[in-house]
């Protein structure tokens, strides 16, 4: 109560909720993603006044500039809207001024709890590299690293024993994550320690370094068994190629997921090259350069530097910046908010400083944005629930229900391509619906979803799949010539956005099989098998289609090679699918 009186309700509650959020999928749970910004908005109305620095204005300019740029260049999707709204929420968080002691203790306590969960997970599952309640282990490592740093250097009210015990426990939790990012953070922390303690703390520094090396060695030995983990270099290569295409202004907010796979050159596995596509750049800096270009990144950097200058938690924030070199830590909402919190605590407690501007908030001024934003988040939440219900119904093969839920989810938030895709997927397999209703609904859902998500190749591919289903059906002969032309257009659009996707390539091949374009069909076949030499369906389709005996023999040989692959080999699901060991991929 005393703290609330001194610092203000939201200065205590917002950080508290951020700490709690780390236990809900590291902030990725809908309860955090949709309800926390809503809570912030309500607090905005509750507060009579809030103070903005120049950095806030720069940051808000950056947000709106990126948003408008993304919309105007036709790259916007659901996440673009979320980017703007969550960005504004982050800006709001940076207006808070929580007490240093509260923040430090909160960080240590939550890190300890995560450590407890990690130890439990390790015992329960019998393996290292556990993520606690985060989506991945690296994020847990970053959170605990921040806690460890706070325990070592910022915790005032503790004796050496307590500090030692807590630090040891946190280090143990850190170890269980087996994170390479964690190794880097430990290395950095030992450097800070060496600088701070000087000659006195040589042993402690040495111990920390030793621990870091041990962590790295263990992870390295794990990586040798699993070469996929070494694909990060290829991801950076893809990001580099993508960046060079648009270095100045970038691609727009929240577009990297859709576009990065196009630049990926594949990973070397025994029977496949494209079982995985990177969905993120695996570096906050690369992600920023890709999304906002040099221009946007510089503005963002300038805004953050402004906050950083007045922050009392510079070292902790640097730790997060360091962790971001090889990780997309911004994808964890909790870590992002934690970073914002680190920027809020001033070096000395002063609410108003030079170059700050106080704003009064009244219901009259605030009700409209509050209404619009809260309405949007409520719809998002509702759409999310319907989507989950649709997925559940689909798993249970309740197709009609699945369609209803997906369709309702899509209707509530037409920006979400996943709901649209789910609705079409379930619609196509339902027999009870009349053919004309089915086709018209599929057309409507897919065309409006494609119009709203112009950078999402999967939507265009889904469109192609739908037209292919129409071509495959009995009857409807008069509609087929145009449906085929539309299908080709859709698949070309999908390939223009993601040219190295074997599934898209195979769809193109399947569509060309309906035509007499032998040359194009063969070319697509060769393109496909150069991407995935073990794509069984490609060979089978070519065998059915071609009259060239040499080519037929080649296909027969390849199918034989595929048939001779022992099923006992360690194959992932994708490989099993392309080899035809797990039913068909297409």
């Amino acid at each position, binding site marked *: 109560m005393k703290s609330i009186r001194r610092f203000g309700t939201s200065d205590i509650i917002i950080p508290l909720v951020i700490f709690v959020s780390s236990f809900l999928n590291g902030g990725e749970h809908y309860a955090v993603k949709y309800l926390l910004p809503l809570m912030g908005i309500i607090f905005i109305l509750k507060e009579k006044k809030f103070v903005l620095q120049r950095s806030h204005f720069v940051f808000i300019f950056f947000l709106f500039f990126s948003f408008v740029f993304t919309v105007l260049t036709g790259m916007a999707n659901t996440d673009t809207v979320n980017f703007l709204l969550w960005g504004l929420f982050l800006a709001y968080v940076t207006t808070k001024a929580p007490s240093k002691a509260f923040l430090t203790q909160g960080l240590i306590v939550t890190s300890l709890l995560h450590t407890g969960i990690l130890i439990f997970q390790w015992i329960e599952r019998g393996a290292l590299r556990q993520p606690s309640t985060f989506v991945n282990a690296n994020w847990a490592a970053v959170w605990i690293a921040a806690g460890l740093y706070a325990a070592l250097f910022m915790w005032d009210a503790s004796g050496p024993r307590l500090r030692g015990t807590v630090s040891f426990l946190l280090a143990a939790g850190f170890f269980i994550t087996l994170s390479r990012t964690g190794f880097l953070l430990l290395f950095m922390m030992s450097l800070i320690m060496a600088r701070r303690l000087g000659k006195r703390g040589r042993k402690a520094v040495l111990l920390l370094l030793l621990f870091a090396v041990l962590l790295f060695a263990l992870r390295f030995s794990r990586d040798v068994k699993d070469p996929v983990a070494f694909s990060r270099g290829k991801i950076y290569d893809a990001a580099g190629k993508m960046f060079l295409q648009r270095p100045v202004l970038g691609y727009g907010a929240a577009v990297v997921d859709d576009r990065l796979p196009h630049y990926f050159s594949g990973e070397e596995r025994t029977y496949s090259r494209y079982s995985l596509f990177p969905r993120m750049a695996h570096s906050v800096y690369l992600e920023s350069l890709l999304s906002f270009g040099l221009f946007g990144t510089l503005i963002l950097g300038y805004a953050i530097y402004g906050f950083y200058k007045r922050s009392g938690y510079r070292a902790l924030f640097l730790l997060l910046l360091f962790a971001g070199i090889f990780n997309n830590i911004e994808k964890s909402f909790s870590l992002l908010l934690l970073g914002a919190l680190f920027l809020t605590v001033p070096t000395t407690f002063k609410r108003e400083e030079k170059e700050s501007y106080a704003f009064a908030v009244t219901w009259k001024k605030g009700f409209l944005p509050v209404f619009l934003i809260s309405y*949007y988040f409520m719809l998002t939440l509702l759409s999310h629930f319907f989507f989950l219900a649709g997925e559940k119904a689909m798993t249970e093969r309740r197709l009609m229900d699945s369609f209803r839920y997906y369709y309702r989810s899509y209707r*509530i938030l037409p920006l979400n391509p996943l709901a649209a895709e789910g609705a079409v997927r379930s619609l196509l397999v339902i027999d009870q619906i009349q053919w*004309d209703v089915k086709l018209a609904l599929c057309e409507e859902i897919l065309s409006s979803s494609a119009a709203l998500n112009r950078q999402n190749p999967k939507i265009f591919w889904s469109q192609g799949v739908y037209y292919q289903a129409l071509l495959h059906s009995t009857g*409807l002969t008069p*509609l087929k010539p145009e449906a085929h032309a539309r299908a080709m257009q859709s698949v070309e659009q999908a390939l223009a956005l993601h040219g190295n996707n074997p599934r898209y390539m195979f769809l193109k091949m399947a569509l060309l099989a309906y035509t007499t374009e032998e040359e194009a069909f063969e070319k697509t076949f060769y393109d496909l098998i150069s991407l995935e030499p073990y794509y069984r369906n490609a060979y089978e389709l070519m065998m059915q289609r071609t009259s060239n005996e040499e080519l037929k023999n080649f296909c027969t040989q390849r199918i034989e090679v595929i048939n001779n692959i022992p099923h006992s080999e360690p194959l992932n699901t994708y490989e099993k699918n392309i080899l035809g060991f797990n039913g068909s991929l297409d």
Partner: protein
Amino acid sequence: MAGKRMGAPLQAPLFFEILKPLFISLKLFYLALLMGIPFVTGSVYVQHPLAPYALLLAGLLILLGFLYQKRLPFPAAAAFLFLFVAALLSPEKTLSFEYLAAFFLSFTALLVFDPADEKLLTPFLAFYSLTMACYVAFQYYVVYPSLLAQVTDPAQRAILRGMRFFGTFALPNIYSFFLMAVVLLMFMRLLKEKKSLYWIPFLVNGTMLLLTRSFIAAVLTFLMIVILALKKNKILGWGIAGAGLSLGGLFFLLTRGTESLGQSLFFRYANYVSALRIFRDYPLAGTGLNHFDLYYPLYRLEGANYVHNAHALPFQMMADLGGIGIAVLLLLGLFLWSLRKSPFFPLLMALMLHFVFDLTFYIPSVAALFWAYAGIAQKKREYTRKKGLSLPALASLFLLCAAFIPSFRYYTVNPPHPVRRMEKEARLHRERGALYSHFITMYKLNQFVDAKEKPQIREQYEEYKKIWNQ
């Protein structure tokens, strides 16, 4: 120095003195043109080809308003901006600009009328309403009998038989809105000055209101009169309430009957349910401004009537614009709330309630009255004394000019209704052999078209279905 600033030369008192009578005459002419000049024309809303002239007049008034540095109040400007952006982003621009242009015509009144105009506008309306009453009598006894001999359509014949009066307006409901505004204004004047000639327009228009047999306007007028009377004198208020309830109820039962009223209420209920169902399916940003018209046949309840709007501003807004529509409603509420201290607040409240229960909001001929009195109800500003260029005034000018261009284009080009456009598209697809596109367009047409108006589309669709599925 002040003389060199932008806008400063316009502040010379002489300039404003010269311009003032012209400005006032233009304002009244603009209103008269919207409402219809009896014996000369109907309202521009009825006489569609006249609308561009009314629009040009509105444009001129906006420019004059800018010279006086007039500005739109924030909530109303924000509501207008939302509607404008919604029209620009809507899938069927023709439908959206039909409403936006109509709204623009009436909304201009908010900018051009100010507190000083009340002294002229209320007497003008009193005189005008009496002329209108004469015109209605002339219509009833001279025009309609001759027209009855020519018209064969049963709906038109029912109107012409003079069952319900509507003057220069398009429908009795619209005329009743006008009458409600005039009756309330006259009553407010009468409460102020008892010995006044305003008794005449009050009684004449009150009678005309009953003769329109419009339930909503009559009830709202009655309620507001009771409230105003109660505020002045409790005995008078309760007396009016008792007498009005018994006599008014009896009158409505005798003239419209319970069956007609019941059917009307069922239709309203059905329209509202359909609008809410559209909203349920399009909650984010709705179907598009004025797209209720297009989507209604898809959501029409069994036994319900065929309509082109939801007959209620909130439901229409929700169906058309989803969450944005709710925001517009909130803004309108906020705007009305900001005028709560004005003596015209009860009048504005009654007019807004009429918008809520009937869709007169987009009918410029009468909605202009709401916006004109909203302009009058605002706090008096010293427009002419202000130095330099006012930013809100410039923003208001910019917003209205931006909306003027597409509105003018709509009234001059008069683009085809989406259904007619789709019919043409379907024909073209068929001629080109693009049968998949033909199927999709025909499917949409079949959904959007009013089965009662165009049963042939349904029949055509069923025939094509056999061809497509060969």
